[in-house]
């Protein structure tokens, strides 16, 4: 009899052995001497986690209950492996080149790094895997119970659930220790893989050993065994071809979509060539595993008492024959099957949970402005450890709820049907570029709902979660929605029924969802990457050291920011980190900084996507990104250049236009000026010529003679004055005038101006304020006098009052001395006030003016030269001019 202590000791010793193996493999990998770890044989053996406790124990039970149907569970994966170059090779290539970490990551990446899809697939996988985990707990617990019963002990059988809890705890500890020892970028776990490879050998040997014992030790050889089988019930089982096809498909699909299978097939794959060996070696392994299933079942049914659980024949047959050693070996085989599956499955699920649920939640809870600190690794590892414990806890809870009574195979198939809901999105995603995110979401949702409704919820048993009335009559009495007879399809196996409806509607929803929606840019890019993976990647690339990533970031940044700017940015960061050269450590702060810089060039969304590709795991290859960046940079540069050119041209055109306008204006002014001068010169000339011709003809009176020669004289004088004024103005305008600066007094200047105009025929009465005129001046006194004469003469000529009077009033305004000249005439209209200082702006008729209209223009030029001003002063009753005197201080005297 095997005592509990012995069994426990063996189990613990076995676990310790696995620890040693795993630890050695890790050490070997770390030292870089672990090439053998990547051998195709290790890879093939690691695939054997497909054969769980369900296969180890359950297959016999399955055969005992349903005949050869158990073979379908091996047939599906065999078909997938033999056809490896079609789907598997593509999955592995994508997984390696895109750094895929889980099946949720694959689906999410393919459909544009969709967080929602990642969460959906993760939840689906957790829910679907839970029964499977429960199954493993159950099998280990049952195997303990078998020994207890055989020994007549009651040390376990009375409380199966408590022992299941201990098993779950033990597995959690082992998985946490080896599954989360480090956070490898490529999520490889050499220790774990090595340990499960060893376990694969143990379980195969154990099953074969029991089989050999059954055939040759119990049945008495090969011949008798065949006879025994022929006479047993198993040979009589009618096989339903529908179930065969359905189950083969189901197991094949599950082989691809089970999280743990994806983990070992794709994530832990060290070399694509390993698939070639595995494609024939793994089916061979499965064949060996299935070889003795029927003999064990037949013998078990024959020699064991009625009512024995066929799921445990593998243990109970050796025990009943008193072969404790074989029984313990067999127990270790089953234990291996259960532990290896649980370990890998929980690692795969924990990776998904931490990557797709915990980390995004944590990041979003930090808000967009939060600085991602360096402890994100700690966060991820912590999340994984918690997830492992959580997933095992869920399995335990399911085990408690389902009561542990279900046949092992049935529970396994429920899980299979759940995980294969990802298949349409996965296969569609890698073979069909038209597949979109919404298609995937729709398909998975529809499939999940139907699976849960028609298979998962009823699996808790009548009145477990769904009331019996709902199962019998549908919710609210709607018969079409009965969980196990959807849309009125009855008389069909519940599993096949659920599988058919869920996969059919899942695929339909996926197809139409994809056709009816338009993929986003990143989705299209990813779609092309995934579907055309063989055109893009020459074998898988390695992403190992952080320097390579920094360099890739630099290459990308150079394409976008320009070579110098990018190098400066990277070098500064490297210096800040105390490193030489251009390549800094890729820290979160640096990445954020870089992203900000890039966002300035290509926009925030694109920059985020680009940087995200490098940091979160490249779902777009570097070459593709660089090609995109190159293209964008070229377009940007080209458009920049065009913009610059067009701006330059516009500027030149504007300058030309301005210059042209100025020239035109000048030309118009010149024409107008010449026209004016011509007119002003020709008018007196006309009189002179006409009268001189008249005089030359002779024969006129003395009066006429005197009058006409007088006219000729006056007009000649007018011409002279005009020429004088023109010359004066020209000199003043060109700034060629020389000023004779001198000390003087305002009074003297006014005196001189008044007396110079006093004898003119148009002389005006001048009213002065003698007392206020003694203001010292330092200026060109002659020029100032000229201005005053002009103003007094104008007043005399133009003032239309009956008794014209001009007031000359010096005063101080705002700290400056001014002299106002105000007459009592009608003044000058507002519009004319604007033009009186222009050349030839004579307002009234020529006769009275006697000048060419240059006087005020000359005055203004003089005052400008002297450093004062002359302006028209409106609102004074008559015409009024204000002369602001130049600063009276002689700069030479102030010193």
């Amino acid at each position: 009899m095997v005592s509990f202590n012995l069994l426990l000791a063996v189990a613990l010793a076995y676990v310790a052995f696995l620890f040693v193996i795993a630890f050695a493999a890790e050490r070997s990998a770390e030292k870089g001497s672990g090439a053998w770890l990547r051998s195709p044989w290790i890879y093939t053996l690691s695939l054997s986690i497909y054969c769980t406790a369900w296969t180890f124990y359950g297959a016999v039970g399955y055969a005992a209950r349903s005949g050869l149907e158990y073979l379908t569970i091996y047939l599906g994966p065999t078909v997938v492996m033999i056809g490896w170059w079609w789907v598997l090779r593509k999955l592995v290539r994508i997984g390696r080149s895109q750094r895929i970490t889980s099946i949720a990551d694959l689906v999410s990446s393919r459909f544009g790094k969709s967080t929602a899809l990642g969460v959906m697939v993760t939840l689906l996988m957790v829910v679907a895997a839970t029964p499977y985990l429960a199954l493993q707990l159950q099998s280990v617990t049952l195997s303990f119970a078998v020994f207890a019963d055989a020994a007549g002990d009651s040390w376990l059988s009375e409380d199966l659930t408590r022992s299941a809890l201990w098993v779950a705890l033990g597995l959690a500890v082992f998985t946490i220790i080896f599954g989360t020892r480090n956070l490898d970028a490529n999520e490889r776990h050499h220790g774990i893989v090595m340990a499960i490879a060893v376990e694969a050998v143990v379980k195969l040997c154990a099953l074969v050993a029991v089989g050999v014992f059954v055939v040759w030790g119990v049945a008495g050889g090969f011949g008798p065994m065949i006879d025994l089988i022929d006479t047993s019930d198993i040979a009589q089982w009618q096989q339903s071809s529908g179930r065969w096809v359905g189950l083969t498909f189901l197991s094949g699909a599950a082989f691809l979509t089970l999280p743990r299978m994806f983990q070992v097939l794709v994530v832990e794959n060290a070399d694509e060539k390993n698939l070639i060996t595995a494609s024939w070696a793994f089916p061979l392994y499965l064949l060996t595993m299935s070889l003795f299933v029927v003999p064990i079942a037949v013998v078990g049914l024959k020699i064991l008492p009625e009512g024995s659980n066929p799921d445990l024949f593998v243990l109970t047959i050796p025990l009943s024959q008193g072969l404790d050693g074989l029984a313990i070996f067999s127990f270790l085989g089953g234990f291996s099957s259960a532990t290896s599956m649980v370990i890998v499955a929980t690692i795969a699920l924990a990776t998904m949970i931490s990557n797709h649920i915990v980390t995004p939640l944590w990041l979003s809870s930090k808000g967009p402005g939060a600085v991602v600190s360096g402890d994100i690794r700690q966060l991820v590892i912590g999340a994984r450890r918690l997830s492992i414990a959580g997933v095992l806890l869920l399995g335990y809870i399911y085990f408690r709820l389902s009561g542990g009574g279900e046949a092992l195979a049935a529970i396994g198939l429920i899980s299979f049907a759940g995980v294969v809901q990802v298949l349409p999105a996965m296969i569609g995603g890698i073979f069909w570029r038209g597949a979109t995110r919404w298609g995937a979401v729709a398909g998975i949702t529809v499939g999940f709902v139907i699976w849960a409704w028609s298979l998962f919820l009823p699996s808790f048993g009548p009145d477990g979660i769904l009331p019996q009335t709902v199962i019998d009559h549908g919710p609210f009495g709607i018969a079409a929605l009965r969980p196990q007879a959807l849309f009125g399809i009855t008389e069909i196996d519940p599993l096949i029924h659920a599988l058919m409806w869920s996969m059919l509607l899942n695929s339909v929803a996926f197809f139409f969802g994809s056709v009816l929606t338009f993929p986003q840019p990143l989705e299209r890019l990813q779609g092309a990457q995934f579907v055309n993976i063989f055109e893009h990647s020459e074998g898988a690339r390695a992403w190992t050291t952080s320097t390579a990533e920094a360099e890739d970031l630099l290459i990308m940044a150079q394409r976008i920011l320009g070579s110098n700017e990018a190098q400066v940015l990277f070098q500064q960061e490297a210096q800040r980190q105390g490193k030489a050269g251009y390549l800094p450590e890729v820290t979160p702060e640096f990445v954020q900084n870089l992203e900000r810089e890039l966002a300035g060039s290509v926009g925030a969304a694109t920059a985020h996507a680009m940087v995200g590709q490098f940091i979160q795991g490249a779902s777009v290859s570097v070459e593709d990104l660089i090609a995109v960046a190159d293209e964008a940079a070229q377009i940007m540069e080209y458009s920049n250049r065009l913009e610059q050119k067009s701006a330059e041209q516009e500027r030149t055109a504007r300058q030309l236009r301005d210059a042209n306008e100025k020239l035109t204006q000048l030309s118009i002014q010149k024409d107008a000026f010449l026209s004016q001068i011509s007119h002003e010169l020709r008018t007196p000339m006309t009189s002179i010529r006409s009268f001189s011709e008249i005089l030359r003809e002779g024969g006129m009176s003395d009066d006429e003679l005197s009058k006409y020669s007088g006219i000729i004289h006056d007009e000649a004088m007018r011409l002279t004055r005009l020429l004088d004024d023109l010359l004066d103005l020209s000199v003043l305008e060109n700034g060629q005038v020389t000023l004779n600066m001198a000390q003087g007094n305002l009074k003297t200047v006014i005196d001189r101006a008044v007396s110079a105009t006093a004898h003119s025929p148009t002389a005006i009465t001048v009213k002065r304020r003698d007392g206020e005129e003694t203001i010292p001046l330092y200026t060109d006194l002659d020029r100032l006098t000229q201005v005053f004469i002009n103003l007094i003469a104008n007043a005399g000529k133009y003032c239309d009052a009956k008794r014209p009077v001009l007031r000359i009033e010096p005063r101080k305004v705002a700290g400056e001395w001014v002299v106002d000249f105000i007459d009592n005439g009608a003044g000058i209209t507002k519009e004319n006030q604007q033009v009186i200082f222009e050349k030839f702006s004579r307002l009234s008729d020529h006769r009275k003016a006697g000048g060419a209209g240059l006087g005020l223009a000359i005055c203004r030029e003089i005052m400008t030269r002297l450093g004062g001003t002359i302006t028209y002063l409106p609102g004074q009753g008559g015409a009024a001019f204000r002369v602001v005197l130049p600063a009276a201080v002689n700069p030479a005297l102030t010193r």
Partner: protein
Amino acid sequence: MAKRVLVIEDEPNIIEAISFILSRDGWTVHTHSDGETANERITATPPDLIILDVMLPGKSGFDILRDLRESPQTTDLPVLMLTARGQTRDREMAERLGVTQFMTKPFSNAEVLESVRALVRD
């Protein structure tokens, strides 16, 4: 009955000269020195010939000419335009507006007389 010539001009000395020349030749000379009222004056007592300056106070000689040609009563009235603005552009403008003859100042007395005689033949 002597033919009447209306001189529209604002330079007194030029009015004096033209008046002298034409009176001596037997023409009745009327003068008008304001541009603004020139057209009314012409319509009131239409002369046989108008001697028209361009730069006039109030209204330019071109505007006066245009109005004359637009009014059916004066559309055929001979107009001799005398201007100190002798540019080609002014001549073209005057011709477009329908001037009978265009002369620039300073003019020769003989030429003016000849033109006046030629324009008022009958």
